[in-house]
């Protein structure tokens, strides 16, 4: 019984969590302030009331939270754990990399860890260096962990459900600056899709942009500016980063012969390098060298004007696109 409702991103996450708790009795939802208070971003509001002790608050113990998820998952539960900021996952990275990622492989498939880590990342004004990082690349270097980064309300709903239904440890990386945005039409209640795939919020034949996360909006703004000048930008939004949709990217680059990758994470060692590498290794013919637009390698200063100087901005993306198209 699919249905169209108006939800902002936070509401869409809430709706997806509610549906998962409703339809999958094996789900648990927990994290710091997730239960009674309904989450520091209000995203789990009302769920404890509705689902009782399957939704609960935890001590500030990320290692225990994630370890407990690994254990509960191997006994038929499907835990959904909120790590309030991706930066905090670093106090418990062992449980993701050395524990969750190994469960299925090392046990030769005898055990599994169908758990979902919901977290959020990104820069916001004056959030401070320890609350500003974009760390998807760390997770993407860990075989065994699935990763997605929804942006729209629809994807925030859909991808979270796909992640929860997925039988492997999956990290859903949201962005707190999007939660309270305007309401969008979201189709809810559709069958849950398997993980994987991409989105193409703009299409064009002149240059391919691969991007993901909140910065996609800046890419779209830049694309609109080029569009106004008759330049067609093919924007591949890699909402799933593991599995990554190589084919979509290669098909697009095959048409455009030009590639720009944009991410908010630090340039060096970011996943943009992987995308560039896969494209050039494929033998795709590029008319001009590929480009990455990303955080200039740095820590993130609190003062907004300083951070802005380091982060990729619409103008910088536009310039990169124009240069690539021009050459």
């Amino acid at each position, binding site marked *: 019984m699919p249905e169209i409702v108006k939800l902002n991103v936070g509401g869409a996450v809430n709706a997806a969590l509610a549906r998962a708790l409703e339809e999958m009795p094996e789900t648990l939802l927990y994290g*710091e*302030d997730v239960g*009674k*208070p309904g989450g*520091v971003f209000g995203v789990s509001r009302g769920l404890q009331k509705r689902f009782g002790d399957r939704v609960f*608050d*935890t*001590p*500030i*113990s*990320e*290692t*225990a939270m994630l370890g407990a998820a690994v254990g509960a998952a191997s006994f038929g539960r499907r835990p959904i754990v909120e790590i309030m900021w991706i*930066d*905090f996952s670093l*106090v418990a990275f062992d449980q993701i990399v050395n524990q969750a990622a190994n469960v299925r492989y090392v046990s030769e498939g005898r055990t599994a860890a169908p758990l979902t880590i919901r977290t959020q990342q990104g820069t*916001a*004004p*004056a*959030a*401070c*260096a*320890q*609350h500003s990082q974009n760390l998807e690349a760390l997770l993407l270097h860990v075989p065994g962990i699935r990763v997605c980064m929804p942006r729209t309300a629809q994807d925030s709903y859909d991808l979270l459900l796909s992640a929860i239904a997925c039988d492997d440890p999956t990290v859903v990386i949201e962005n707190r600056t999007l939660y309270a945005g305007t309401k969008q039409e979201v189709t809810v209640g559709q069958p849950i899709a398997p993980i994987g795939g991409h989105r193409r919020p703009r299409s064009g034949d002149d240059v391919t942009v691969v991007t993901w996360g909140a910065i996609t909006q800046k890419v779209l703004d830049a694309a609109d500016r080029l569009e106004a000048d008759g330049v067609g930008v093919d924007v591949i939004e890699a909402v799933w980063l593991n599995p990554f949709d190589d084919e979509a990217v290669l098909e697009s680059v095959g048409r455009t012969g030009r590639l720009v990758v944009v991410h908010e994470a630090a340039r060096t060692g970011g996943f943009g390098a992987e995308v560039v590498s896969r494209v050039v290794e494929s033998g795709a013919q590029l008319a001009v060298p590929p480009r990455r637009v990303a955080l*200039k*390698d*740095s*820590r993130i*200063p*609190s*003062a*907004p*004007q*300083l*951070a*802005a*100087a*380091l982060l990729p901005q619409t103008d910088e993306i536009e310039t990169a696109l124009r240069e690539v198209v021009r050459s």
Partner: protein
Amino acid sequence: MNDIITRGLDDLSAMWRIRALEEKIRELRLADQVVGSVHLAIGQESVAVGACSELRAHDALYATYRGHGWAVARGVPPREIFGEVLGRVSGVNGGRGGSAHFSAPQHGFHGENSIVGAGAPIAVGAALAARYDGSGRIAMTVFGDGAMNQGAVTEAMNFAAAFGLGVIFICENNRYSELTPINDMVANPDLSQRATALGIPAVRVDGNDLAQVRTAVRLSVESAVAGRGPSFIEAHTQRLVGHYIGDAEQYRPAGELDADREVEPIAALTRTLLASGVGQETLDRCERRAREEMDRAAAAALADPLVDPATAKEHLYA
């Protein structure tokens, strides 16, 4: 005036300076002149004032995101704090730290930390260094009740205990970790017992009582200086505001805030001083002077130039 009253007025002024600074920051935040996340310690001032009054200039303090008051108590100039949260050149870190992550080592304020529990091991390192440099420095680290459940804090306490390092662990138990009551997250509400179990002398004090805080810290300093290693102080306190600006505080039981306002340290000390015969206008002057100082400091910082974005790439490496 006798010594007790003089000290009382000094303490009252010291607490008012913190509260006035924080209320000013809140005002600026609500006016969107300050942006981002701001964590106030309104109601908790006595712990910072009492603890810092027992530290020596060369001791090292490590605080959390809720650290403005500790910085003030350590002697960081208010204009530099305002400048910091406003991203001005006068900012103590040129706007790079911000409200939740600034430091001023020149004032013995070795920084806030926005990762719960992460400051404790770092403070241990400051005490470790003192073993070798003959400075006699001790380190103090302050964190909340909730931080006790972060593994880093136990590791830090054991490390200091095992090696007899001069670290004072102060747990500001304000009953809440963000929006969640600490007593729902532990089976034993006496957090100090965790330190005892690690072999660290531990006490629980009424954090609203400056004398209790001072005595506990003084004994801890003496013990550390004498080479007897770390101490732990659980100071019961309360924050009279939300965890962050905008916190709807729905987690508070009815009447709690009213009761807290009765016992909070500025109200309590004001009452005591009044009962000791200090005149209302003397007390009011403490508040007024503090507010004037902070108004001036904020105005000065607002008039300071913004940090130049062209400097954003500096200082990543030596």
